[in-house]
């Protein structure tokens, strides 16, 4: 991967993609009729939410991979997805209330979608806390993998929450049935933004994987130093 798509090129592509997305959000997508300018929060809010859900799906896959094959790379992948996913999920919880306040008149309500998104954020926190507080790395990886697999149940329920229950949160714009949907230019802005976020997610995950590899090398050299000091 590094040979064909070096990290520096990845960073440049991400930056350019984000610039294009920003242009589309502010200068190409039309202003929403009832909400006005504040509706433009939608593009980063929804794209972050989709990316956070995808991140948890990657944790789920990495966790299964680790429990099955016991490969460190699968564990690093899941751990990296958790860390970057946590950042995106935090962005969802920050941008959501900032959109809700001027539109609904309230910052927050405990409806199904909002509550399940908060639970998703707590699952990211639980996963990362387990990694930090369990001293034995092998045991931490196994426990985190179990959280990664069991916690994934939140993602499909969260996705379906606005279809199954009446919520304060708006109805879905994708596959939401009659009356749902967006202006074609809004679709373009949304998908370009999501693409840029996926590119950013992949870049940050790569950086995390590099960090994890460095960490293992350091741990190996520490052991070697300890052995030579003991000899």
């Amino acid at each position: 991967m590094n040979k064909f798509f070096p990290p520096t090129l990845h960073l440049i592509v991400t930056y350019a993609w984000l610039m294009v997305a920003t242009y589309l959000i502010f200068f190409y997508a039309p202003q929403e009729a009832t909400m006005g300018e504040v509706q433009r929060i939608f593009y980063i809010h929804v794209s972050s939410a989709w990316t956070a859900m995808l991140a948890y799906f990657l944790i789920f896959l990495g966790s299964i991979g680790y429990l099955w094959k016991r490969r460190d790379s699968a564990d690093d992948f899941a751990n990296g997805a958790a860390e970057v996913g946590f950042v995106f999920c935090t962005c969802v919880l920050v941008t959501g209330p900032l959109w809700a306040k001027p539109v609904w008149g309230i910052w927050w309500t405990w409806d199904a979608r909002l509550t399940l998104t908060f639970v998703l954020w707590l699952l990211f926190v639980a996963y990362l806390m387990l990694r930090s507080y369990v001293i034995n790395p092998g045991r931490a990886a196994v426990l985190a993998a179990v959280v990664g697999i069991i916690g994934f149940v939140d993602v499909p329920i969260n996705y379906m929450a606005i279809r199954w229950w009446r919520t304060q949160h708006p109805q879905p714009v994708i596959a939401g049935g009659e009356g749902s949907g967006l202006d074609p230019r809004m679709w373009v802005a949304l998908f370009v933004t999501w693409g840029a976020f996926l590119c950013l997610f992949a870049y940050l995950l790569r950086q995390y994987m590099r960090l994890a590899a460095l960490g293992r090398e350091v741990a190996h050299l520490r052991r070697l130093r300890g052995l030579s000091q003991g000899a």
Partner: protein
Amino acid sequence: MCNVYLVLAYGLFWGIFMVYAWVIHGRQQRLEKELEELKKEVGQR
């Protein structure tokens, strides 16, 4: 055009990513430094 909620949302969004990028960069630098020191130390023995 300039809606305070919109500005806050985008500002905080990019702020969160800046902080995360700074944290990752710091961790990477610390590990690289430690790795260099350990390599020298182990290589000398």
